[in-house]
């Protein structure tokens, strides 16, 4: 049975402390609640949460929506984005199944990144490792003016930005992630092509600016 792997990469650095990280927590709770009520997401979507601050960690390994439980998140430390990309590459290697003649593999993973600041490590190395894998759609979100969309554009062509890392904008971003996962769950069940970028996702809300 083909699964739709979804990875959330969340910045939990010190600057996220307070309103931003609380908004992320609420956003994640809402996202999980919504997907638990979506029959196609329940059947197809598998979710993983990776956070990065002074190190990158897998808070939740790739888990089917029915079994998924929201991990506890807190914010402090630096912003090791490269470590996160590298960890993501490792996880995809381990968790995502490739197709064989005997069995169809998983769909190409969806990745949603969220960061409010500049990376504090060598992100290019992490990116190089990630490039070995084919992703379905990789959306990077630059929240507030501490984050650099141009830098994120070097990581993935699909970049969005939030004017500020506040509750309203972050909530909108997570709602959009949720409806994107729902939409992809639907289209993979119809047997449609693996996702190819922002254009195949539902249009983002007003708070989420597409960076051209």
């Amino acid at each position, binding site marked *: 049975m083909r699964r739709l792997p979804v990875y959330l990469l969340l910045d939990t650095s010190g600057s996220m402390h307070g309103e931003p990280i609380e908004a992320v927590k609420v956003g994640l709770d809402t996202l999980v609640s919504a997907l638990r009520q979506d*029959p196609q997401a329940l*059947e197809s979507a598998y979710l993983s949460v990776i956070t990065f601050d002074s190190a990158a960690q897998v*808070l939740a390994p790739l888990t089917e929506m029915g079994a998924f*439980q929201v991990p506890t998140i807190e914010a402090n430390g630096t912003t090791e984005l490269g470590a996160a990309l590298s960890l993501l590459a490792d996880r995809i290697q381990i968790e995502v199944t490739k197709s064989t003649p005997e069995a169809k593999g998983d769909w190409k993973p969806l990745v949603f990144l969220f960061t409010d600041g500049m990376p504090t490590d060598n992100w290019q190395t992490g990116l190089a490792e990630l490039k070995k894998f084919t992703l379905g759609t990789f959306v990077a979100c630059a929240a507030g003016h501490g984050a650099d969309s141009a830098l994120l554009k070097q990581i993935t062509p699909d970049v969005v930005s939030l004017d500020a890392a506040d509750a309203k904008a972050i909530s909108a971003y997570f709602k959009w992630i949720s409806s994107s996962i729902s939409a992809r769950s639907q289209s993979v069940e119809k047997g449609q092509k693996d996702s190819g970028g922002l254009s195949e996702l539902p249009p983002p809300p007003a708070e989420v600016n597409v960076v051209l």
Partner: protein
Amino acid sequence: MQKHVYASSSQLTTAICLPISRLLIDQVRISTQMTNKPSLFSRAAFWRKNEDASEPESNTPPQQEQTPARQDQAPIKQGQLPIEREQVLPKQEQAPQSSSAPAPVNCNPSPAQSADAKPPIPQPARPSAPTGPTASTPPNLSPSPSLAPKSPFAAPTAQTTPQVPKAPQAPQSPQPIATPPHNQSQAPVLAKLQLSLPNAKVNQEYLEAVTALDTNGHAIAIDDIEIDAACGLSFDPKSSHIQGLPITAGTVSLKIKWTNSKGQPFFYTLNLIVIADPKSLWNNIEPPASAPYFKKNTDSLFISEHPVRIAAASRRGRSHEHNGSFRDDDFFIHADSASGWSTLIVADGAGSARFSRRGSEIATTEFGALILAATTGDLGTELTNQLERWDESSDAQKSISAHFQKLFQEASVAAIKKIDAEAQSIPTSAKDYSTTLLVAVTKRLKTRTFIVAFWVGDGVIAAYGPSGKVRVMGQPDGGEHAGQTVFLDARVVMDGPSFFKRIKMGFFSDITSVMLMTDGVSDPKFETDSELSDPSKWDALWSEISPLLFTQSPEQALLDWLEFYSPKHHDDRTIAVLW
């Protein structure tokens, strides 16, 4: 108010006779519910003054108690039983006050000492609220079990007790002042636990061991878990398991109760998630009546032209029902009694193509009409003559082959032209009408069945029979990373060699049935392409379908059967069967 405390004088005496240190410690007792309780000392004084009284009466609470009392109001709401408030023992604040009260019994600590005694025991780190453990950081008590590797809390121990203002410093682990009868009367304290429970599913048996660790990592034995009986789950303290059959999706609140080695009661609330049955979450929304190219959600047909029987059924899939869009599949079946030639066609409009329901309709209709023209009347008779000479020479076979190659080529061109014209009339791209197409033309001659198939896209065409044997008349388009398939378009027609590979012929004995189906049926019934050639899978499918064919209305029976639930397979479903 103090109805239940010190029901007998002997209890009070026993309490009083405890060692000094324990009394001091007990001043920092679990006291979230403490409001108007006299301290041990004031009670002792009272007792001494009222030796003849049969029962101690309540003291009017001194002023100092008011502040902590108010602060205690909030914690009460978090589930502690109000009754127990009355049963808690000495209040710290009273100590200084009653320091002047002389101890009636030898082992009573001198109040003056108690006031001065500030054992230099460092307070452990704890949440800021001075009263009630429940006042500590509500976010910590998040409903979901805490699985995070980094614990964000400098968590108090399971034996945490509240700081009481004005209390002299006291060690953190209180010794119980009370003898066993008083244990039950202590109010349970809210404290964190390390515990995770997997999600439950509606209508699925749930049986999980509850193994919990306190925040020091020590295993605790759970006394009870309060669960709303209506949710279908219950806790068995003997086995320490939660079990049952949840019936409603949502969150179930678990109030976990335990006592530590010193008999102090604690509790922790946790939310258990119950996941809905995906089947119950599907909507069924009608497609817009005003949309172009309206197509019915279901279609079915039964043809009986002895000895030929053909039934076909087509049904909108759950995912289209869920989002209120049209069925994109279509079919065409025909049996000509004069010529004996039959035609079966199924088509699957591309999900991403907005008018593919029209594309599948055009393709099936065009092919149907042209095939009829080429297999009936004189042409039909000629074909039959060729067929009768099948074994004699390869010329007959080549002639038949050429006949159908030409036919399918012409039909493809006709269908594509018609779609192009339709697209231009909008105007839009012909890609909006993309569809697959599976065709079988067949005739029974004596003991054998002739079948010629034309195959574009996914799904399957098969000549099945006898039991244990199947001939798959081609192969599905689409790779291992399928999500993609091939549709009937100019590219397919122009690619000469590969076009002809799509046409397969056979003249087989003992054919039970010819079956065509779109991938909405073949995907759930054959998980992989290689399973398509597994005869046992076909035997299984035939045993499922054949009873339906021998009913009064086989087409209706097939239509009903197409409603079967198969997780992740919610595409439109179409099947055409000749038997």
